[in-house]
């Protein structure tokens, strides 16, 4: 039952004890505010780094030929290893646990691409259709490469989002022909892949383009995905691939520099571990902040009840029951802590939303700046994104503070309610 008279009593007490009310409210609001900012910042950092992973399949692995560092079977160190179509065929046929595999023949940087009067220098990537899930490209309009493009050696091209912006502006690109190194390719689709440089590419069918650009049987990189393999299984697949390629190219299997393998999954797991650590640390600080808040509130509540002992004695002499005394002190404590906690929570969420808004704006501005500059690099990595604390945690923390504040007030209030009024009256 809502006892309006009791609340009038409480409000008049709060109004007459402004400093006490303010201090209690402030310590609660401050604790919650800090907790939300802390956890929100942690989430923002994690969201940003994890976003950078999003652009590739999380179970992707990239394999490329490099330079040997150990002499082996009479062959000198420093020999360059070139992957070929045959390596791709063997990996596809003989390594189990791979669900997507695609060779890549890349011409990095300055290949001239033009449409009408518009032109730019973009990276050319010659791949199979299965490259799409490995790279994690999303098709915006049109379609990606398919098996028929490969079989019929069609001269088609899928262009990156920023290539479209540079060459076509607002115009619909599908069905148009663009010149890649003065050879006409028909645009069949536009893709988007994360942020920045990965969108400044033109993607061609592997076999036709490899021939057109004098690739011979050379393969720059082989990309694979490992299905739902765990990090450990993925490491085993990596090991099998290394052994197989080492055998084919007569490389010491222990020579890690001869064949480069970038395993996204194990790296993803490592990053996750790092963030687990960071999160633990943030929680540690957050809980510490919370405890400081609880101690602060408890302390104030203890002082408040001590401060009011004499008043409680007077009230009891005038006929206050123990229940009414406890209820008065407790309702006041819960009212202040709840209001202040809610205020702190709203303020914290508002601040984080504000930061989120500014960060989003700066990301958008960054992307726009990168798009307008024609060089292939650029597109600064995002360090902070969507900094939002879990609202459930925020509410939970507020409730915890309220309960602790109430408990801290309850114990001395019960004591004050129980002692004989004469002792309370004598209390100075």
């Amino acid at each position, binding site marked *: 039952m809502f006892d309006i008279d009791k609340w009038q009593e409480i409000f008049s007490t709060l109004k007459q004890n402004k400093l006490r009310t303010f201090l209690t409210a402030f310590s609660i609001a401050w604790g919650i505010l800090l907790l939300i900012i802390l956890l929100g910042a942690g989430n923002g950092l994690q969201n940003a780094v994890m976003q950078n992973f999003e652009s590739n399949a999380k179970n992707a692995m990239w394999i490329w030929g490099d330079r040997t560092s150990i002499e082996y079977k009479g062959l000198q160190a420093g020999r360059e290893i070139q992957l070929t179509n045959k390596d791709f065929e063997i990996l596809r046929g003989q390594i189990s646990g791979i669900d997507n595999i695609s060779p890549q023949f890349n011409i990095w940087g300055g290949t001239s691409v033009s449409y009408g009067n518009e032109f730019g220098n973009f990276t050319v990537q010659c791949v199979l259709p299965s490259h799409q899930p490995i790279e994690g490209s999303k098709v915006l309009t049109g379609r990606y490469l398919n098996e028929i493009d490969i079989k019929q050696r069609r001269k088609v091209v899928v262009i990156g989002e920023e290539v479209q912006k540079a060459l076509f502006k607002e115009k619909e690109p599908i069905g148009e022909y663009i010149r890649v190194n003065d050879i006409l390719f028909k645009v069949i689709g536009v893709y988007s892949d994360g942020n920045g440089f990965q969108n400044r590419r033109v993607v061609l069918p592997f076999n036709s383009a490899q021939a057109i650009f004098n690739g011979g049987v050379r393969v720059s990189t082989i990309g694979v995905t490992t299905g739902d393999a765990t990090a450990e299984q993925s490491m085993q697949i990596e090991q099998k691939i290394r052994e197989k390629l080492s055998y084919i190219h007569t490389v010491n299997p222990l020579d890690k520099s001869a064949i480069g393998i970038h395993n996204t999954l194990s790296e993803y797991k490592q990053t996750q571990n790092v963030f687990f650590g960071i999160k633990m640390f943030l929680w540690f600080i957050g809980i510490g902040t919370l405890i400081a808040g609880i101690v602060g509130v408890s302390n104030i509540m203890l002082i408040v009840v001590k401060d009011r002992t004499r008043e409680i004695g007077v*009230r009891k*002499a005038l006929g206050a029951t123990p229940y009414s005394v406890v209820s008065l002190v407790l309702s006041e404590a819960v009212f202040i802590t709840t209001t202040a906690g809610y205020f702190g929570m709203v303020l914290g969420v508002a601040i984080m939303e504000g930061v989120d808004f500014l960060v989003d704006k700066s990301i958008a501005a960054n992307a726009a700046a990168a798009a307008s500059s024609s060089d292939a690099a650029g597109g600064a990595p995002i360090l902070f994104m969507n900094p939002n604390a879990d609202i459930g945690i925020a509410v939970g923390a507020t409730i915890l503070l309220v309960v602790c504040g109430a408990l801290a007030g309850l114990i001395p209030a019960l004591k004050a309610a129980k002692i004989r009024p004469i002792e309370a009256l004598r209390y100075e």
Partner: protein
Amino acid sequence: MVRIEKLHKSYVTGSNSLHVLKGIDVEINKGEMVSIMGSSGSGKSTLLNIIGILDNYDEGGYYLDGELIKNMSEAKAAIHRNRTLGFVFQQFNLISFKNALENVALPLYYQKISRKKRNIIAMEYLDKMGLRDWAHHMPNELSGGQKQRIAIARSLISKPKVILADEPTGALDTTISYEVMDILKEINADGITMIIVTHEHDIAEMTQRIIRLKDGIIESNVTNGKKKQVAAV
């Protein structure tokens, strides 16, 4: 109204035990105005606190309006303090953050009387004390005499049967003391039993009976002759 039989009370602090009341037998009738005198440490305040159920006792019996008050729960004691008893203290014990009107109305809050109604009643009692104009002043803006009159109004508002006053004039000068005593006498004249603890003879002289305590026992219990004479004339 108040009957006390073989009352004992000790204060225990650590291993020390202080025997304050050593077998008190006293009876105070309805409508009487009694003063309890004694030097400090004689146990007079302790006796008053026991009568007011502000403190408990060890042995004997205390009957208030025929009801035995012993080891009473705080909740039950609260009802007695609220309905049957009224308190006037030496240090007034007004609540500092409430104005005069709210202080006077407070006992009615614990009777669950609505704010509007209790403020009207409180104003009547303030008016009786001649403090209507001071109703919205805080205690620290008032003089000692005014504060004590507010405290008396507060003790009266619940229409108690007994008023207990612990050194009601202890913090006041002589003129104001006499004014306060006049008010208390008027209240007594309305039929409310009045028990006053004091160490001032002139204050005690104004009551009908003087109970003298010394070292925890009643030294003398005499009806005030002077008062009787005045009454006889």
